[in-house]
């Protein structure tokens, strides 16, 4: 084996075979994948099926708290989880850039394996392509996931009503700040680690118990809690009012945001969920979330009120203001 990815690793010949059998198969060792057929045979699946896909592009691919491999598994598992589905099988599409150190690929693969194991999902099929140097960013991963819906629960944005509470399962912005710092062009040091984690174990056990209390859930990834809540408010056609004092933000993340002029509301998370729940069950659901390691800092962050749809915030100073979609990326300010 070479210590770097070469174009010939993607050309379908002996080197491709070697890469798959000697490297990838070493990490993804399971009976569905093992025969290396053109499709993973999942067998009979009981229940209603959910299906999702996502592409993962992150610079740098390795950052405190995670890497692109863990991200690629968790992102897809979480998309299924917030729709009430337990991930059964996922695919793994790798697009590698010529020259990528083999050790980097192996690091990503081992993270994928560990995350899949944690989430209880089988990596059932895959594909590898190699692009010329300069045409990729080291490593891109796409995953698609099949899941089985929890019986008796479906996302129901239309069930949202005034008096419902808005819950967040933990602190905002950890992932994006960890990645920003890992880029090392900010000259900022802060002990922030990404929150990337699979959320099935946190969310799915709640669904049978609070079936008619949990209206719907989303994972606030790109665009953060601010964008996710705007999308949720418009799909529920409801007015969400956040309470600034209750928004959970880690001190180190807040410090970085203060310096750069970023709003943690719009920073990506990879291990958090937003839930809209019946107001009467909110405290009980928060308590249940807090019993899980990924929900320790779960909190009620606002409520649904009667009035024109959209997202508002009651500020610490006692005022009310709009929380809108941001335009483009947040850019560091001049002064």
């Amino acid at each position: 084996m070479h210590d770097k990815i070469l174009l010939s690793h993607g050309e379908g010949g002996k080197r491709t075979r070697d890469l798959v059998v000697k490297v990838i198969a070493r990490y993804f060792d399971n009976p569905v994948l093992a025969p290396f057929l053109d499709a993973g045979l999942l067998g009979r699946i009981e229940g209603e099926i959910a299906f999702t896909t996502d592409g993962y592009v992150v610079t740098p691919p390795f950052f405190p708290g995670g890497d692109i491999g863990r991200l690629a598994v968790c992102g897809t598992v979480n998309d299924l989880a917030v729709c009430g589905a337990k991930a059964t099988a996922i695919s793994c599409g790798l697009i590698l850039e010529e020259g990528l150190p083999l050790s980097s690929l192996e690091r990503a693969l081992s993270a994928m394996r560990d995350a899949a194991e944690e989430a209880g999902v089988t990596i059932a099929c895959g594909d590898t392509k190699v692009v010329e140097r300069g045409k990729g960013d080291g490593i891109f991963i796409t995953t698609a996931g099949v899941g089985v819906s929890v019986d008796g629960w479906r996302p129901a944005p239309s069930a949202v009503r005034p008096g419902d509470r808005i819950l967040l399962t933990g602190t905002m912005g950890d992932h994006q700040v960890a990645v920003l710092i890992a880029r090392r062009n900010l000259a900022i040091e802060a002990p922030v680690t990404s929150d990337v984690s699979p959320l099935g174990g946190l969310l799915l056990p709640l669904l049978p118990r609070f079936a008619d209390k949990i209206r719907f859930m989303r994972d606030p990834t790109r665009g953060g809690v601010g964008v996710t809540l705007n999308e949720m408010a418009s799909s529920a056609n409801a007015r969400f009012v956040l309470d600034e004092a209750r928004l959970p933000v880690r001190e180190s993340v807040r410090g970085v945001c203060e310096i750069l002029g970023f709003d943690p509301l719009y920073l990506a998370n990879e291990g958090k969920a937003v839930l809209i729940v019946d107001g009467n069950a909110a405290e009980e659901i928060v308590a249940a979330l807090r019993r899980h390691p990924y929900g320790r800092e779960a909190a009620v962050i606002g409520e649904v009120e009667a009035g024109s749809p959209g997202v508002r915030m009651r500020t610490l100073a006692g005022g009310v203001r709009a929380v809108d979609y941001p335009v483009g990326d947040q850019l560091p300010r001049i002064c």
Partner: protein
Amino acid sequence: MRLKYIDDFRDPATAKALVERIRGDAGNAPVRLMEVCGTHTVAIARSGIRPLLSGAVTMLSGPGCPVCVTPDGYIDAAISLGRDRRVLLASFGDMLRVPGRSSSLEKEKGNALEVRIVYSPLDAVTLAAATPDREVVFLGVGFETTAPAIGGAIKTAAVRRVGNFSVLPSLRTIPGAMEVLASDPDVRIEGFLCPAHVSVVIGTDAYRPIAETYGIPCVVAGFEPLDILLGISMLLRQKKEGVARVENEYSRVAQAAGNRKAQEVIREVFVPCDTGWRGIGVIPGSGLRIAEAYAAFDAEKKFGVPVVFAQEKTACRCGDVLKGKILPDDCPLFGKACVPEEPYGPCMVSGEGTCAAYYKYGAA
């Protein structure tokens, strides 16, 4: 980093008490105060202070957003420089979406113009040193807050002999613009909430001529919600007592004389010049150009690309917004032809722009 410190400046109970005091001190007609600085504008909008004080205080937003007052001729000059294949532009992020006469850096970036976003002017010197075959031109936009850092970068480039680094300057100083507004009978400002960071550099004494000559109270305030409420309260107290002086709410950082070292860098690298403010016009002595001793680092001279200032003639009323003559909602384009996705005027572009802050945080 002591972040408990931040919480102290965001305490809801203290905020409530201050709002009550402000309301108690205000008269029958709303008092017209101006926050000069864009960071204050955003902080006021983000913390929902404007509606809290409605009826008691009208907060006018001033010209203190560097992006907003940069004339479109500057953007045009930057774009034409960037079209030179040798040139690699380096800029603060929030300049990218600012429209020039026909395009913006962001749009040109899609057309193969190369712009690197940097977080400090010194990063641009490092970039130049690392890419000796390119001419790195830093877009030096800002007020007294960024001028020392840009001056420092020029000095560093001179010491390290980084000959392929230069700056296209668009630097302005705040007190001159405040004087123009203080003397404008249409604006009728009854008190200035003076910038926090700028005052750290220039010192709070810099506003004394405004308080003394024009009889307008000045209070330097920090950017936290309680800083702002306390600053407003201090302005109202001065008005009630019938005095006009410079007071310092931000004494934990800003001093009367300012930061002498930063001032020295400014004096060494730059000389005052007349300069155009978008929407306002040319204000004598309110700009900083690069001094002769450092002319080798002046991109305008090096590449012969002059920054032309021409008063724009459009329906956009950013100029009146920047002068506090109107509020954003009074502009016919606001929220219609001019929105953050397709900004017409600069006040809608910058995250610190008055119109953007009104659009983003308004409409409760």
